[in-house]
């Protein structure tokens, strides 16, 4: 009898452990079920694919933010990088640059701004919040300046049409594919590569990392550079999706990206975070938004609910 109850006990413990470790994921499933009951169209293939596509832009930003936050930093400039690189893509195409080259240039712009953030933080020793607050404003202003404050539309065909509006097998949108590819890359590299481990070590204890011979400064620059590239990619997707670059695109997107990372268990204190958690965090936000849209709730309510979810998620995470 005793062994049997012990077995049940240990099985029970394991379940508890699994639940604790995967609170965000279980939360996502619960939310999806609730949404599914409230809006039966939620669980259609069309809608689920749609949710994934909608999650793509925020997802790319959130993965960038995730590594920045794990390393102990923050990046407020991603929304502005999104706008400036999206605008650059559109304007280059307008002057006759082939769209795939324009996209490549946009990604370089993202890498450049990200590196600038990194240099300001690692070399000029600015606090990440201050450095990226500054670049956030600077590049939003530059976007408005170069565009004259007006959108740049009707960009034609080719790469620029395919990347945001194209579909594979006629059903799966390219942005959804891009998001999943980026997810799998992050999943692998955070767990298995030296660069991934360096990110954790820098956020865990930067001084000890330096003494372990890790080049903390250059790694910080790479981290912000990656965040910048991902934000630029998100900018290209956004521009392609609506066939137009809008100067105010991506405004306050950094907040949703931070939310995605944090709901997924990334710690703002640094040193902690998982790619899967962030993916779940992004989808929690996307599913809530989609569900509220389906039942016809107001946009304003979405903010109230997303905000509450952030707070609940962090409290639940703390309870571990």
């Amino acid at each position, binding site marked *: 009898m005793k062994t049997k109850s012990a077995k049940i006990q240990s099985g029970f413990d394991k379940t508890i452990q699994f639940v604790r470790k995967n609170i965000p994921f279980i939360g996502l499933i619960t939310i999806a079920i609730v949404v599914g009951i409230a809006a039966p169209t939620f669980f259609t293939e069309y809608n689920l694919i749609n949710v994934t596509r909608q999650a793509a832009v925020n997802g790319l930003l959130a993965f960038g933010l995730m590594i920045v936050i794990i390393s102990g930093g923050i990046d407020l400039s991603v929304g502005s990088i999104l706008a400036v690189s999206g605008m650059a893509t559109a304007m280059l195409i307008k002057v006759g640059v082939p769209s795939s080259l324009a996209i490549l240039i946009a990604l370089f712009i993202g890498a450049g701004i990200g590196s600038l953030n990194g240099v300001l933080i690692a070399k000029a020793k600015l606090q990440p919040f201050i450095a990226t607050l500054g670049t956030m404003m600077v590049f939003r202003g530059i976007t408005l300046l170069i565009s004259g404050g007006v959108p740049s539309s009707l960009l034609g065909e080719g790469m620029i049409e395919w990347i945001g509006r194209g579909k594979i097998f006629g059903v799966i949108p390219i942005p959804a594919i891009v998001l999943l590819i980026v997810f799998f890359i992050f999943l692998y590299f955070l767990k298995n590569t030296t660069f991934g481990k*360096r990110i954790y070590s820098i956020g865990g204890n930067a001084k000890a*990392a330096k003494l*372990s*011979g890790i080049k903390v400064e250059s790694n910080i620059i790479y981290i912000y550079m990656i965040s910048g590239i991902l934000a630029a990619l998100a900018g290209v997707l956004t521009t392609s999706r609506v066939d137009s670059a809008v100067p105010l695109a991506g405004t306050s997107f950094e907040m949703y990206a931070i939310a995605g990372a944090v709901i997924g268990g990334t710690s703002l204190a640094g040193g902690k975070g998982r790619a899967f958690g962030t993916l779940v965090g992004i989808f929690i936000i996307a599913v809530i938004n989609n569900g509220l849209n389906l039942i016809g709730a107001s946009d304003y309510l979405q903010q109230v609910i997303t905000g509450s979810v952030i707070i609940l998620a962090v409290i639940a995470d703390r309870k571990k």
Partner: protein
Amino acid sequence: MRLEMKKINKSFGPVKVLKDVDFVVENNEVHAFVGENGAGKSTLMKILTGIYSLDSGEIYLDGEMQHFKTIRDSEAKKIVIVNQELNVFGDMTVLDNLFLNKEIVNKYRKIDVGKQSVIAKEIFKLLQLDLDLSRPVRELSVGLQQMLEISKALIVDAELIVMDEPTSALTEVEIEHLFKVIKVLKKEGKSIIYISHRMKEILEICDSITILRDGVFIKRAQIKDITYDEIVSNMVGYELGGLFPDKPFVKPGQSLLKGENLSKKGKFSNIHFEVKEGEIIGFAGLMGSGRTEIMNAIFGMDPADSGKFYYKDKPVRIRSVQDAKKIHIGYVTEDRKEEGLFLDFSLNENVLFNNLTEFSKHNIVDKELTRKVSNEYLKMVNIKCRDNDQLVSELSGGNQQKVIIAKWLANKPEILILDEPTRGIDVNSKKQIYDLIFKLRELKIGFIVVSSELVELLGIADRIYVMHEGRLTGELVNKDLKDETVMKYMVGGENIEN
């Protein structure tokens, strides 16, 4: 004030930390409280100050029973604890720190700086301190910050002051000052609980002693009736033998690292040293003498402005940590938690982070190899832990120190710098660390040891370099060396060489 704690019991979950502990401090005495790390000293003090509640037992002050629920209750009864980790706010001034949350205000609720300054100056006079009240505390030495904490106790007119490892970060001069202060406090009629691992200090300053082992009260005695060996054997539960291993005769091998004319502006000048295979050299000096700065230069953290290094008699440049690691130098830092460890990570990960390149191929981490190698070295240093996936933050100080040594061993070092290798860890762990150092010297590793505890250097080093204000004042062969001799050079005595 007379304190009596009777039959105190305390458990955390299934672990019984204190078992029927009796603890008495007589009025107006300095009472030593000793035991190994994990013996339950801190827990008992936290119960005394109301931070922890007790499971059973009674606390009496001057015969009157007390029920402390929070730290405020104990403060109201004039009990104050001066923690090992100081609670100072670096950016606030000395005066603001002193009166934090105890501000004196006038009738318009405005802080009365004048009145506060008068009180502060009185206390500083009593403690023979010369401190500018408007200086940010960040600029003070650790020793002065400690004095500030003691001053805080006097502001609330504490009658029983608990000092937890007060000397662990102090220089010899500062310790002398602290002892003077303790004597002043005693004259003022205060009682003091003095928690320390340093027997010499206890024998010098305390009146009586309580020894705790594994949460059990072992012995209470007057200092004059007890010997050093009795205290230590009661603490560890067996005869310790010598704390230091017998020095086997090791003939130093080939030269490993040599430094010549090393200088850094404002830090140190014209320093030379040499360490050979299997040799242990020590750096002695007061805090601020430039010891740690030289180590930082040797390790490339903060490179020297000028001077030359030779690795195995070939000239090398050390401009970065990467350069130092290339010639197989390892650095066990002074500040375990701030600089040495990734506390919220596992033992394995701590080893991994230090050896990412070695444990990976094409930048992809080989997890099997990591596990295998880190297991090997963690076993070598003999760490007490659940398994190697346990978080480092859950280990005791001594075991944490061994993790740092293990992570550097996995790096296959030829030269290992140990800065304060045994600070804040108990006697038993100290002995294990010394044994480990001697085991490793037989593998031809050369050691550079920096320590504030002269006894330690005299116990393990082959040669001792003594520093004073950034200069080398002596290079001494550790044979029949007396601590007074080394001390003389530490305070700037005559050069032997140069």
